[in-house]
């Protein structure tokens, strides 16, 4: 391979990105060296096994990936603003919509949700960490290096260009000969392994580590959604693992799974992909429902309406998520019987979802509503998500879907559910739990600016796309000719996208502004919260709870406040606390995964084997390790608690 093929060349945008990447790396190295922070970053962050720090790292990555995916989106909107534009060529456009989709789902939505669940779930169930803290660190670093491997593709070797669904035969060697789709297969595999381990970890954590008295039916709704999400992860992600492995074999070793000759079957890929892919979108939306449930209940200052119905509807949605996948390709021609079955199962999803919508509305009824930023996002979610849901039922009608399939109507639909559902939830959750993460509030005024800019921009951007779809504009077309009548609505959509971009910039400024001038949260309970995470200091001390809280009802902390005026800790009840030790191994094992993955992408098998040997070495060292963690003495707990509670 020549160097000119190794590095992507010929595009001014790419050269600018090269320069930006080098400058950023130099900048990071300079700052860390100048402020003598290398030791700090290693001890406090890279080797940490603390669920709260791991959660923060997930969210930082998610925001960075939101930027990357957002830039992709703006480039696409720029290209489509007017007919016959030459801003991007067809190949570049293909790469950008592929990375936009993949990054937004797998490297933005997933880590944002997983970050929030890392921070919140152990606190909500009254635990000191997750069941397997070391594994949790490994999960994060595998996600991180998977994401990095995916992201370097656009300057080294070339990005994947077969769509985020990577359908065969397009994604096969014959039609995509470069390394781009190797990046897709390998990097998703690496981060997918991390996600699977997160699923197992939180399943055990929630099942086994709840505070005494917290029965399943007394769990906070967010924890419930995470429990069910973890079940989905455990049963859906192995399918992705296999699908990507088969893709890797087809691309690297010329096997015949999805090829056009020798018996291969390209539609097998579509089936495997969506058997994972449909549960995957519920993996991101169910926690979003949980976040909204917490926020609506807190700011309506009422217990969640229909708690049990909420739980059963999550379980129902999770069950249905595994039997609807064919609706992604009704046009494959499976026949009316098959299509009818999947059409009905798909429409059935609307029933439990409708139950949830009404429960949120009834929670609001007669509540003393406080319109905080988090609450605004949650209130805006309801009508916007309903628009996405109703158009989803329209798409579920198999016969009608022949008209909508792969048109901008579909694009509008899934952005209405994913943005109004997941992204709104991420922003709502970020504002809501921000004091718990960092000890200070996000500025409400700037938060509301972000909300209005982003929410209006979102509707201006995506609502016209329903009509563009009905007018015949199909997905993934890189340009269109004048005279089709699509230009005005495309201009409107681009304006909306720019508004969303401005909203994002205000959010970033808010993070900076609040860090400097934001109101400190001295109480640990700035919103008059209902669940146990608000019983800790903001940010919580590293062992979370000095003594394990006892739960005797739903909304455990709310009841505690009513009965005893808060979470009471008697110093004579303190016992030494056992904590896990930090470890650098999850970090370097994941580096080894990155190296092995890079070797596979370029078919440099010696490098891949070297990386694999380091992974095996890491596993062996872990097995022989004899580290039982350490204990925090009672005196130290007393000192920490007095310091943490001084503000209260």
């Amino acid at each position: 391979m020549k160097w000119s093929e190794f590095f992507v060349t010929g595009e001014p945008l790419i050269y600018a990105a090269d320069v930006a990447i080098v400058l950023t790396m130099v900048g990071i190295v300079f700052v860390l060296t100048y402020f003598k922070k290398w030791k700090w970053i290693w001890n406090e962050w890279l080797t940490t096994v603390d669920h709260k720090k791991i959660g923060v790292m997930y969210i930082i990555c998610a925001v960075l990936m939101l930027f990357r995916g957002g830039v992709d989106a703006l480039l696409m909107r720029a290209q489509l603003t007017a007919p016959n534009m030459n801003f991007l060529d067809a190949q570049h456009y293909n790469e950008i919509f592929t990375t936009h989709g993949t990054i937004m789902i797998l490297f933005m939505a997933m880590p944002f949700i997983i970050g929030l669940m890392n921070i919140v779930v152990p606190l909500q169930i009254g635990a000191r960490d997750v069941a397997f803290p070391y594994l949790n660190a490994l999960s994060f670093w595998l996600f991180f290096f998977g994401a990095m491997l995916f992201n370097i593709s656009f300057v080294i070797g070339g990005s994947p260009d077969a769509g985020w669904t990577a359908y065969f035969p397009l994604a096969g060697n014959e039609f995509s000969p470069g390394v781009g789709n190797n990046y897709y297969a390998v990097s998703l595999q690496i981060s997918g392994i991390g996600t699977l381990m997160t699923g197992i970890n939180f399943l055990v954590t929630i099942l086994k580590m709840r505070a005494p008295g917290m029965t399943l039916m007394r769990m906070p709704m967010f924890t419930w959604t995470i429990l069910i999400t973890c079940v989905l992860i455990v049963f859906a992600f192995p399918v992705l693992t296999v699908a990507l492995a088969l893709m890797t074999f087809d691309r690297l070793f010329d096997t015949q799974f999805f090829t056009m000759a020798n018996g291969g079957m390209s539609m097998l890929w579509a089936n495997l992909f969506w058997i994972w892919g449909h549960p995957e979108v519920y993996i991101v939306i169910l926690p979003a429902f949980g976040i909204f449930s917490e926020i609506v209940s807190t700011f309506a200052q009422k217990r969640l309406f229909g708690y049990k119905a909420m739980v059963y509807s999550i379980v129902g949605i999770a069950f249905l998520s595994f039997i609807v996948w064919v609706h992604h390709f009704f046009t494959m021609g499976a026949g009316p019987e098959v299509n009818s079955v999947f059409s009905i199962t798909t429409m059935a999803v609307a029933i439990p979802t409708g139950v949830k919508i009404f429960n949120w509305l009834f929670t609001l009824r007669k509540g003393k509503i406080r319109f905080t930023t988090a609450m605004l996002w949650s209130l805006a979610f309801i009508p916007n998500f309903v628009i996405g849901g109703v158009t989803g039922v329209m798409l579920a009608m198999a016969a009608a879907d022949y008209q909508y399939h792969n048109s901008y109507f579909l694009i509008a639909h899934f952005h209405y559910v994913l943005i109004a559902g997941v992204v709104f939830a991420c922003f709502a959750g970020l504002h809501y739990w921000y004091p718990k993460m960092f000890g200070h509030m996000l500025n409400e005024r700037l938060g509301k600016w972000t909300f209005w800019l982003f929410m209006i921009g979102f509707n201006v951007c995506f609502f016209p796309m329903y009509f563009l779809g009905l007018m015949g504009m199909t997905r993934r077309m890189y340009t269109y000719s004048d005279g089709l009548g699509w230009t005005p609505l495309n201009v409107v959509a681009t304006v909306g996208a720019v508004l969303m971009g401005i909203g994002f910039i205000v959010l970033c400024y808010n993070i900076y502004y609040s860090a400097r001038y934001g109101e400190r949260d001295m109480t640990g309970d700035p919103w008059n919260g209902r669940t146990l995470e608000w019983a800790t200091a903001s940010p919580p001390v590293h062992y979370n709870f000095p003594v394990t809280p006892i739960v005797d009802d739903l909304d455990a902390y709310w009841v505690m406040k009513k009965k005893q005026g808060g979470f009471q800790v008697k110093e004579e009840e303190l016992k030494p606390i056992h904590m896990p030790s930090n470890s650098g191994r999850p970090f370097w094992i994941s580096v080894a995964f990155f190296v092995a993955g890079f070797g596979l992408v370029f078919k440099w098998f010696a490098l891949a084997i070297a990386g694999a040997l380091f992974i095996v070495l890491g596993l062996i060292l872990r097995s022989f390790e004899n580290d039982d963690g350490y204990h925090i003495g009672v005196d130290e707990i007393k000192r920490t608690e007095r310091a943490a509670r001084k503000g209260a």
Partner: protein
Amino acid sequence: MGEAVHRYDETMPLEYRTEENRLNILGFWIFLGAEVVLFATLFATYLVLFQRTGSGPTAQELFQVKDVLIETLLLLTSSFTCGLAIFEMRRGRLAGLLAWLLVTLLLGIGFITFEVREFIHYVHEGATMQTSAFLSSFFVLVGTHGAHVSLGIGWMIFIIIQLLQRGLTVKTARKVFIVSLYWHFLDVVWIFIFTLVYLLGMVV
């Protein structure tokens, strides 16, 4: 976490005595649940593709009954001896545990040896992964199982070393128990491979 980690419950078997061990064992059961899905996906792929032989040989033309039967006997026996090892562990006998683990290990190595021979034979017949969709899915399904067994062999060797170094403790007992769960699981998968791949391949 919490103070419960070091509290021993003497009424339980050794591997269940600490909270940490119980969490680990439950976590591993859930992992096996994920493994079931992984193999189910590979089986589904195989069943979709196994009659799509292209210009290559069919299953009936290819499979060798004798080798497969020997493999099956070796692996099923190894699952039994692995159970005996756990039985000895529950009685607190380190020597018996080590002896049966060693027998399990040897049977596992025997299984892998015969499987590799079988694969080499097929390749010499001109039936490679690249020949047809049937053979791609056959090699990946059976090969994934073989890779799992090989990993299990390596894992078991390191656990035997730890047993020799540290004796039978709450921690080593947990490790032996978990590797035994893994080993039995692979046995179950093989029964499905034997039925759905080899037996089906000989009649269809």
